[in-house]
C-alpha cells in the first residue's frame, strides 16, 4: 500500500536552517547538510529545502548546497527558492534534486510549469502555493493566493490556481497555509481538504504541524498525500519515528523500515 509521506522542510538562510512564525522572527537551527542526513537516517520519507533569501537578494539558488545534499542524501528531495527559469530548474535537477519547487515564479509566468513539465517530466515540477483566507464573495474557495512570502496578494483564487496548475502539468502541489505557518496549532484542514479532493495529483499539506495528532487529522480528515513538518521536529520535540508510530496506530499507512 502506498504510504503517507512525512517531509521535513528546511528553510535555509546563509547556509543555516532557520524557522520563523508566519515567515517572521526567524531563529537559526543548524547546518542543513547535517540535519538532512539525520532526518534521512531517522526515517523521513523525503526532504524539501527552500533557499528563503535567494529571491529577495536577487541571486540564483545556492547550487553548491544542493550538490552537497545530493552526495549524502539518497532519498528524494525537492528544492525551491530563487528559481528564475528553465536553466535554473535544470541546474538543480542536475545537482541531484528529485524535484524543483516553484511558487512566485509560476504565478508571474504560468507557462514555466508547462515548459518544465515537458522538458523534465511532470514528476519533477512541484507547485508551492501560499493561500490566505479571503472574502468568499470575491474568492469562491475562500482563499486567495499570495506570493513573495505573503507580502503580495495576487487576486487569484486558491482552488482555481491549483486546477490550472494541474492542467499545465505540475506533478504535485504543496499547499502552505500562511495563517498556520509556524504556529504549531495544526494544519488548516478545510483548505487542505478543498485542494486535495479537487485535483487528481498528490497534495502536500504544509504549515501548522505541532503534534502527531495534527498529521493524523490532515491525512484522515483532509486527505493529504504527504505532510510537511518543521518546528515540531527541528527543535527535537518529536522524532519522525514517534510521529510514524502514532500515525500507524491511528490506521494511517507509513513506511516503517529504513
Amino acid at each position, binding site marked *: 500500500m502506498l*504510504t503517507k509521506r512525512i517531509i521535513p522542510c528546511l528553510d535555509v538562510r546563509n547556509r543555516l536552517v532557520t524557522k520563523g512564525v508566519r515567515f517572521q522572527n526567524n531563529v537559526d537551527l543548524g547546518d542543513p547538510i547535517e540535519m538532512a542526513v539525520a532526518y534521512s537516517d531517522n526515517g523521513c520519507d523525503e526532504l524539501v529545502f527552500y533557499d528563503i533569501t535567494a529571491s529577495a537578494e536577487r541571486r540564483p539558488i545556492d547550487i553548491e548546497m544542493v550538490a552537497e545534499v545530493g552526495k549524502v542524501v539518497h*532519498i528524494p528531495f525537492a528544492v525551491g527558492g530563487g528559481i528564475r527559469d528553465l536553466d535554473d530548474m535544470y541546474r538543480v535537477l542536475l545537482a541531484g534534486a528529485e524535484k524543483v519547487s516553484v511558487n512566485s515564479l509560476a504565478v508571474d509566468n504560468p507557462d514555466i510549469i508547462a515548459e518544465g513539465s515537458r522538458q523534465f517530466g511532470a514528476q519533477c515540477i512541484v507547485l508551492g502555493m501560499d493561500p490566505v483566507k479571503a472574502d468568499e464573495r470575491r474568492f469562491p474557495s475562500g482563499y486567495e493566493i499570495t506570493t513573495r512570502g505573503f507580502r503580495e496578494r495576487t487576486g487569484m483564487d486558491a482552488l482555481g490556481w491549483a486546477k490550472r496548475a494541474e492542467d499545465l502539468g505540475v506533478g504535485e502541489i504543496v499547499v502552505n497555509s500562511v495563517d498556520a505557518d509556524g504556529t504549531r496549532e495544526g494544519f488548516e484542514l478545510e483548505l487542505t481538504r478543498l485542494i486535495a*479532493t479537487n485535483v487528481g495529483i498528490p497534495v502536500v499539506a504544509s504549515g501548522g504541524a505541532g503534534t502527531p495528532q495534527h498529521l493524523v487529522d490532515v491525512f484522515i480528515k483532509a*486527505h493529504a498525500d504527504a505532510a510537511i513538518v518543521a518546528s515540531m521536529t527541528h527543535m527535537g520535540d518529536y522524532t519522525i519515528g514517534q510521529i510514524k508510530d502514532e500515525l500507524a496506530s491511528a490506521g494511517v499507512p507509513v513506511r516503517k523500515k529504513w
Partner: protein
Amino acid sequence: MIAIVDYKAGNLTSVRLALEHLGVEAMVTQNPAEILTAERVIFPGVGAAGQAMADIHALGLIEPLKQVVAHGTPFLGICLGTQIIFEHSEEDAGTTCIGIIPGTVKRFTPSDPLCKIPQIGWNTVRFARPHPLFAGIENDSEFYFVHSFYPAPSDADYIAGTTEYAGVQFASAVGRANLFATQFHPERSGRIGLRVLQNFSEWDGTC
C-alpha cells in the same frame, strides 16, 4: 566498471551519486562501444516514453542494448528504463518500445478519485521469488516510486516482485537470467535501495 546509459531523458545524477557513495566505479555514457564492453549496465530514466524512444533511436542505442542483454551482461533497468525495454507502452498515444521483455506498459486508471496519479511515494514490494538483487532485504520493504504507467509482462515468469496501487497488483520488479528491472527507484530508496545497487554491483548475472 558500470555503464550508466545516458539518453538525455531523465536525471542520471542520483544514480551516479548513489554508486559513488557505495564506492562503485561507474561512467555515464551514450557511446555504444562503451556500453557493449561494460561489465554491467544500468538503464535508468525519468520522463516520457515517446521522447525517450526517439532519443534512443537517434543515438543508435537499440541494438547495443539488445546485445548486452543477449550476451549475459548484468543489466539493471530503472523506472522509465524498465518500461521502455517492454514491447509497447500506452504512453504518448502508444509508443513502440525496445522489446526485450514481452508485454506492455499500461496507464493506471483508478476508480477512486482520491487515488492520485502519478503514484508518488513509498510502497511495499512483495518478492515473487528470492533473487540475488534482493539479498539482505526483508520481504515487503518499501521503495520509492514515481510513475503513472506500470509494467505488465505477458510472461508471468518475468515477475520478480509485485506492488499494489490504483486497484492493480503490478510487476514492480521483473527479471530473467542477467536482466533485472524495477519500476521503483533504488537510488532514491535510502539504505534499502542502496543495498539493491550494492547487490547489483557484485552480481554475476546468474540467479
